[in-house]
């Protein structure tokens, strides 16, 4: 309906929202989800009326006082076929529509801005690449696709923003993603919808949608001064990763520059693709990801790095376009001091 008549649609949703029986629409997919929802209710109401009318009319017409002798009917193949095929057709139509919407909601556009979310009992921690951290809050700009890469530090959680009509489970041990494009400035509910223990219902927050200018101001005000990649670099060095992954000819580990997104030939003959989740898993379970030509000597970092630290490391490796800085760090700093800032990495 949002396609057929935008004006009518706006009127309808405004009216429904006014009576508090309809959530606000604040993302590009929200009207699409609402259109399907209305269609489904239409289907339900028609189905109800049909069944209700059949039962009612038959009950009145064929009640025992009026119709004392029942007429025995075997069945009817034609009728049976009709009420098999018509519901099947409707359900398949709903399936296709739902699948289209699902792919729309879960396949992020390539240019989406990245934000990391760590769920823990009982708070949401958001980390922007520019080093802004927030708890039980999320600031996003309008008109720009935002992708959340999420992981849980303990149990299953689920990140839900009803006004955007998006939700995704946040799982321990693996990254899940969700994206949206916010349309209307305002503050909206952020819920944890997967039962996660005592304070499950307290794990709520606010999503603040800002105009691009306001968002720019917000990022400048609330940066901690260190981007995620810079934090990652510092960790990379303090954990000693740079002693093997230093890009020299004698290095015991492969070069990491440009590794993100590439296909890697493994020791066991398989090829693996370096995604966020893959990078995280290599740090935690290196013995399962040995690249061809290297020995399985990397120790596991399980238990030594927090989920936030892993996000920093992954973000650092993702942004490692050349190996130059890595070598330089190895040569110039032998301590755990912060590496010099790299201004081109601070972009949110």
């Amino acid at each position, binding site marked *: 309906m949002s396609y057929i008549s935008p004006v009518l649609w706006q009127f309808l949703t405004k009216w429904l929202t006014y009576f508090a029986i*309809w*959530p606000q629409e604040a993302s590009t997919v929200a009207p699409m*989800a609402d259109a*399907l*929802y209305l269609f*489904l209710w239409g*289907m339900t109401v028609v*189905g*109800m009326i049909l*069944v209700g009318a*059949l*039962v009612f009319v*038959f009950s009145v017409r*064929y*009640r*025992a006082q009026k119709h*004392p*002798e*029942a*007429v*025995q*009917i075997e*069945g009817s193949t034609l009728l049976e076929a009709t009420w*098999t095929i018509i*519901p*099947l057709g409707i*359900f398949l139509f*709903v*399936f296709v*529509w*739902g*699948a289209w919407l*699902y*792919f729309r*909601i*879960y*396949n992020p556009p390539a240019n989406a801005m990245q934000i990391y979310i760590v769920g823990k009992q009982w708070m949401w921690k958001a980390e922007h690449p520019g080093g802004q951290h927030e708890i039980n809050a999320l600031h996003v700009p309008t008109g720009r696709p935002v992708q959340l890469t999420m992981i849980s530090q*303990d*149990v*299953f959680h689920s990140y839900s923003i*009803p006004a955007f009509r998006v*939700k*995704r*489970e946040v*799982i*321990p*041990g*693996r990254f*899940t993603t969700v994206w949206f494009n916010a349309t209307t400035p305002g503050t909206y*509910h952020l*819920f*944890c*919808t*997967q*039962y996660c*223990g*005592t304070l*499950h219902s307290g794990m*709520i927050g606010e999503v603040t949608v800002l105009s691009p200018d306001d968002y720019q101001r917000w990022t400048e005000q609330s940066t901690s001064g260190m981007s995620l990649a810079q934090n990652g670099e510092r960790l990379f060095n303090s954990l000693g990763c740079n002693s093997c992954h230093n890009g020299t000819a004698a290095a015991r580990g492969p070069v990491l520059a440009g590794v993100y997104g590439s296909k890697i030939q493994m020791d066991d003959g398989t090829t693996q693709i370096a995604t966020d989740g893959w990078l995280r898993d290599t740090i935690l379970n290196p013995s399962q990801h040995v690249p061809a030509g290297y020995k399985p000597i990397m120790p596991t970092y399980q*238990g030594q790095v927090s989920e936030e630290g892993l996000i920093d490391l992954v973000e650092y490796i993702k942004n490692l376009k050349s190996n130059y800085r890595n070598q330089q760090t190895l040569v110039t700093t032998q301590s755990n001091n912060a590496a010099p800032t790299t201004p081109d990495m601070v972009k949110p």
Partner: protein
Amino acid sequence: MSTIVSLPDQSTATLPKRSYLNAEHGLLSWLLTGDHKRIAMLYLVSITFFFFLGGFFAGMIRLELLTPVGDLMAADTYNKMFTMHGIVMVFLFLVPSVPATLGNFLIPIMIGAKDLAFPKINLLSWYLYMIGGTFVLASLVLGGVDTGWTFTTPLSTHYLNTHVITTATAIFIAGFSSIFTGLNFIVTIHRMRAPGMTWFRLPLFVWSNYAASIMMVLGTPVLAIAITLVALERTIGIGVFDPAKGGDPLLFQHLFWFYSHPAVYIMILPGFGVISEVISTFSRKRVFGYTAVAFSSVAIALFGFFVWAHHMFIMGVSNYSALVFSLLTMLVAVPSAIKIFNWSFTLQKGSITFETPMLYAFGFIGLFTIGGLTGVFLGSLGMDIHLTETYFIVAHFHFVMVGGMLMAFLSGVHFWWPKMTGRMYPESISKLAAVTTFIGFILTFFPQFVVGYLGMPRRYHAYPAEFQVLNVLSTAGATVLGVGYLLPLLYLGWSLKYGAIAGNNPWQATGLEWQIQSPPLTENFLETPVVEWEAYDYEWLAKKQQAELSHV
């Protein structure tokens, strides 16, 4: 509204001198019985107890949600309340209710057998059920459990200090009760049908219990495995679900829903059977498209095993596997739609009366249609993202399981009450109860669809204030619903002593169970019956009655 004309000996009638109820006396004769009818009664009493226990928790939950702040009880207490509500209702009420009570009582009689194939295993099933129930009560007394009935790992294995193992044991044991019951039914239906009782002369109640039994036998062991792994993970940390040890937390979801989705059909299929019997009897017509209804039960049993991952659309399963499971979910919705239309058309050209079981059956059709169609919302991938884990899903499955299954159960209990006890229940108050239940139900659960679409998550102890109006409505509805459930308890209890004598066939129904005395003899039939009529053959019944009358 007319009542069906009864055979002339009703006014002076007394209960038969000898019946399964007075065949033996004393508590021990009940506790050691091998009679399927007595075991069914044991189940009926115990299941009723657990239903009201689960209902008490539901009441506490609704009372807490009357206000947006968690003021009635602490968060942990609330979590224990909904966990107990779920566990008691699913494992101790919904799954066993129709098969273990009505099925146990009726299946042997309906197929013309003296008992189930394994009477002692049948008694063992009841003991397992009771031991399981005792473990649930024990975990309650010891301080409760707050995993939610879904036992999601790693919450249940690593983060809770409540009585998870005790409860897991309870479910493990109760699961075996269900497996044995299913096995018993399958063997009985295959091997013990009376001469002439062919597969396509079986009452649809037998067909639907047969399909449900297959699911119990195939599905329940997987639940037992999942729950055992949870216990092992908790005690010795085997790590199958722990990502830190290379395990996969999603594996638990797969195992759990591999049982728990079919479990929905285990609950609802026997209910379908009840509805087929009731609608046919009170419209005095054979069920429209008997074969389609029978086969749609089997189709549900088959398809039901291939849709479990539709509980995991938002959990990071691959988009393409989501696509497959969504498609299969749509397919499994079709057989249910077929049944709804078959029941509706059974009424066509019938001679319809509106006794209490029929009113419950109409309630079932209405509520189950809404429940089924809102299931299509959730099977639709993009829609599921917004709706799942909210009150919409709570409303949906309560429509299916409470609106559907429980209405069917009450319909069946009223329908076969005269057969089970030999006495009628009081008709007008029971009609009032049926209507009260229906209205209370709609009022309780319809607002939850709305509040769910607004985004209110399930299992919330406190919630944003704007959801309050709908929650107040829901709680008010729950009060009405509670009255609707308490009434039958009172008047059915009353009827045990004061109810009118029912006679053998008060509804003028065609099933074998109505051709024997009420309440039946321990051995059901004095001699093995020979079945020469199709199921729901009312013309045969009329002829038979005429012959009896002329004989008198």
